[in-house]
């Protein structure tokens, strides 16, 4: 085999990307060596089982993926604004919109939210860690290696080009030769294992590790959203696992599930994919609802209005999310009756969602709102998300969908809900909980710059796309030089660059705040307005989270504790705390499985089997591992707590 069969060649942009990847990698290796940080990296991060550190790694990876997906997006926008420039050819364009979609959903939105869940959920329920810290590390590394595998495809082997939905037969072996599509299958499969494990892990954590006295209906709303999301994960992800496996077997071992030759059914892929894919939409939106609920309550300085209705609406949304998948292919010939059923069930989702919107508004009603950056993201979310939601109902009408489908109207709709919902929530949540993670706030003034740039950029980018869609501009097309479409396309591209600039400012803010922000003294960072238990810990959080766990029997327990002048810390009740040991096994196990997947992608069976055997050996070693962790002694806890609390 020749090197050009493996590396992607022939495109100046790709050569530039290769050079920059090489330079960045060398720079990282050099810096780690120069500052003698290899040991630190291994001991503190690669082997960690601490949910807070794992959460931070999730968020860092997700930000990197947001950068990658954003670059893809801007390249597409350049191509569409200047179609005669020939910036991208059709093949490259197909690869870019495929990776943009896949990365943003699977490797950006979900990991970002899971990262926030990792850090915050145990703190909100008064737990010391996840139920299964080892499995949590395993989940992270499976996501990380899955994402890396997917990302190397554009320089090694070639990217997938069949869209993020990978519809068969287009994505089958007959029409998509080569490793590109295999990268998609194996990258998603590997990270999917981790997502399922996280779902189970968080469910057990929430069900079994709540502070004494805390009933389910005392839990903070973000924890509730996590629990409901995990329910969706556990029941939706196995469908994706099967779908990906079937297509892999089709492509690599010549089975006939989705082919046209052996009486297979290409349409079955659309069903399987969306039976997972539609619930997936709610996997990335429900935690966002939870984040906004926390932020709105905090900065409106009021208890969240309609707590019970908020919880029940999430549960109903979760159930309905499994019953609407056909609305993704109304136009593929399901027939009038089937379309009607799924049309009605789709529009039903607007009801619980509306309940939530009114509850947020009612929380804001007659409150004294503090316009901090996190709150601005939350407030901007409401009208922007409604614009997406209402056009969603328009798309939900099966008859009208024949007009909208495959047009930019659809593109505008899902970017409106996913960006105004999920991306705003990721930024809002990161800003809001940032002091808990790093012990200092992000700069508010720069944060507002990032917010306004991104917010305006977003609307300028996607609002015109509704009209482009109504004017008949199809999606997934790389040439759009029809004169009537050009002005709106150019406006849209300007907006996209506005968002890019906003993101750059946001990231700069991380660096700036690290250097210049005041270090936090108290744990209750937002002017003492924290309502839930995560604000009751000290900052920085000790690795065992809570020295003594408080008794909780109400919603927003920390509000009452502050009124009564209490803290969660009770020195007379200290006991040794049991903690899990750090271990490099999850990292190594997933590295082996990634190697195996890499082999399968190129159909190098020896590599595939070697990776699999390595993974199995690591599992066997794990089975024989009886390390039960260690105990933090009372003296040690006392020392840490006294220092943190200035006692």
């Amino acid at each position: 085999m020749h090197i050009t069969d493996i590396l992607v060649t022939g495109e100046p942009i790709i050569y530039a990307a290769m050079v920059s990847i090489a330079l960045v990698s060398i720079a990282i290796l050099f810096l780690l060596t120069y500052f003698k940080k290899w040991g630190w990296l291994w001991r503190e991060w690669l082997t960690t089982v601490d949910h807070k550190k794992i959460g931070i790694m999730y968020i860092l990876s997700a930000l990197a993926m947001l950068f990658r997906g954003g670059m893809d997006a801007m390249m597409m926008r350049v191509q569409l604004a200047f179609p005669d420039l020939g910036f991208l050819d059709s093949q490259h364009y197909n690869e870019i919109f495929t990776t943009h979609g896949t990365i943003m959903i699977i490797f950006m939105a979900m990991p970002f939210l899971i990262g926030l869940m990792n850090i915050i959920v145990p703190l909100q329920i008064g737990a010391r860690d996840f139920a299964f810290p080892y499995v949590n590390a395993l989940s992270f590394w499976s996501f990380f290696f899955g994402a890396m595998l997917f990302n190397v495809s554009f320089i090694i082997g070639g990217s997938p080009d069949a869209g993020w939905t990978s519809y068969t037969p287009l994505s089958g072996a007959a029409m998509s030769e080569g490793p590109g599509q295999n990268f998609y299958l194996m990258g998603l499969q590997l990270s999917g294992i981790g997502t399922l494990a996280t779902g189970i892990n968080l469910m057990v954590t929430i069900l079994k590790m709540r502070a004494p006295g805390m009933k389910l209906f005392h839990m903070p709303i973000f924890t509730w959203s996590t629990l409901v999301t995990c329910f969706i994960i556990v029941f939706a992800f196995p469908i994706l696992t099967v779908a990906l496996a079937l297509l892999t077997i089709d492509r690599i071992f010549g089975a006939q599930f989705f082919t046209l030759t052996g009486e297979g059914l290409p349409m079955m892929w659309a069903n399987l994919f969306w039976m997972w894919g539609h619930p997936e939409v709610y996997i990335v939106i429900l935690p966002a609802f939870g984040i906004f609920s926390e932020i709105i309550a905090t900065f409106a300085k009021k208890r969240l209005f309609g707590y019970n209705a908020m919880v029940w609406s999430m549960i109903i949304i979760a159930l309905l999310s499994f019953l609407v998948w056909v609305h993704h292919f109304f136009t593929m010939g399901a027939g009038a009756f089937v379309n009607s059923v799924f049309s009605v069930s789709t529009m039903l989702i607007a009801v619980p969602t509306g309940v939530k919107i009114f509850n947020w508004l009612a929380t804001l009603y007659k409150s004294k709102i503090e316009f901090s950056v996190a709150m601005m993201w939350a407030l901007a979310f409401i009208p922007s998300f409604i614009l997406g939601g209402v056009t969603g109902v328009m798309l939900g009408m099966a008859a009208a969908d024949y007009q909208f489908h495959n047009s930019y109207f659809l593109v505008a709709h899902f970017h409106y809900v996913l960006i105004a919902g999920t991306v705003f929530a990721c930024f809002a949540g990161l800003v809001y909980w940032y002091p808990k993670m790093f012990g200092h706030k992000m700069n508010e003034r720069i944060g507002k710059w990032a917010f306004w740039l991104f917010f305006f950029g977003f609307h300028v980018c996607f609002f015109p796309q509704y009209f482009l869609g109504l004017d008949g501009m199809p999606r997934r097309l790389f040439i759009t030089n029809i004169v009537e479409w050009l002005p709106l396309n150019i406006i849209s591209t300007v907006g996209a660059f506005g968002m890019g600039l906003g993101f750059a400012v946001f990231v700069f803010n991380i660096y700036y705040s690290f250097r210049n922000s005041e270090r936090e003294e108290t744990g209750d960072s937002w002017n003492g307005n924290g309502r839930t238990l995560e604000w009751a810990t000290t900052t920085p959080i000790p690795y065992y989270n809570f020295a003594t766990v408080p008794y909780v029997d109400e919603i927003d327990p920390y509000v009452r504790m502050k009124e009564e002048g209490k803290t969660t810390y009770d020195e007379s009740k200290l006991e040794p705390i049991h903690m899990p040991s750090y271990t490099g096994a999850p990292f190594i196990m997933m590295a082996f499985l990634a190697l195996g997947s890499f082999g399968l992608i190129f159909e190098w069976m020896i590599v595939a089997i070697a990776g699999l055997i390595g993974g199995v050996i690591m599992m066997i070693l794990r089975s024989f591992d009886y390390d039960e962790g260690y105990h933090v002694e009372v003296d040690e806890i006392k020392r840490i707590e006294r220092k943190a609390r200035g006692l």
Partner: protein
Amino acid sequence: MSAEELKTGPLEYRTKEGQMSILGFWIFLGAEVVLFATLFATYAVLFGRTADAPHPGELFEAGTVLIMTFLLLTSSFTCGLAIHEMRRGSVKGLTIWMIITLALGLGFLGFEIYEFVHYAHEGATIQSSAFWSSFFVLAGTHGLHVTLGIGWATLLLIQIARRGLTNVTSRKFFIISLYWHFLDVIWIFILTSVYLIGMVI
């Protein structure tokens, strides 16, 4: 996480870690139900789409399938006996019944492999048609689960020989017994909706 231990109840439930692991495994089995449900749905959708390959009715044999069913159902029973012995505190009883369970599982696997090879000789392979793809993947996924279960239980047998009954080893055996019974349940669905229906239609 607390290290305190209850004084009553089965050994595997006495620590919070044990309780959490078992709950987590139940949730995992929920996910496994979805996984197999998807495979069954695929099979049902592709039923009869045999292209030029033989029809299932021509190849399925009641004899082999009945022996397989007998072996696997019995193994579920002996697995129950193993856990019963574990609850009585008998490492020896647990070990013996578990070995019998695994032997029956191996027997099941042997017949399944024989069956697959036989079908392949008759011209029905994973590549020959959509129907046979779905058959081999559905039955094969179950078979793969049985294989994993055998390997996993073997590791646990080594551990119990070394460490005896503790909170941890008993929890591990309890969990694999859940897994084993689950495979039995799945097999009953395969027996009815794949083999019996395939032989009748």
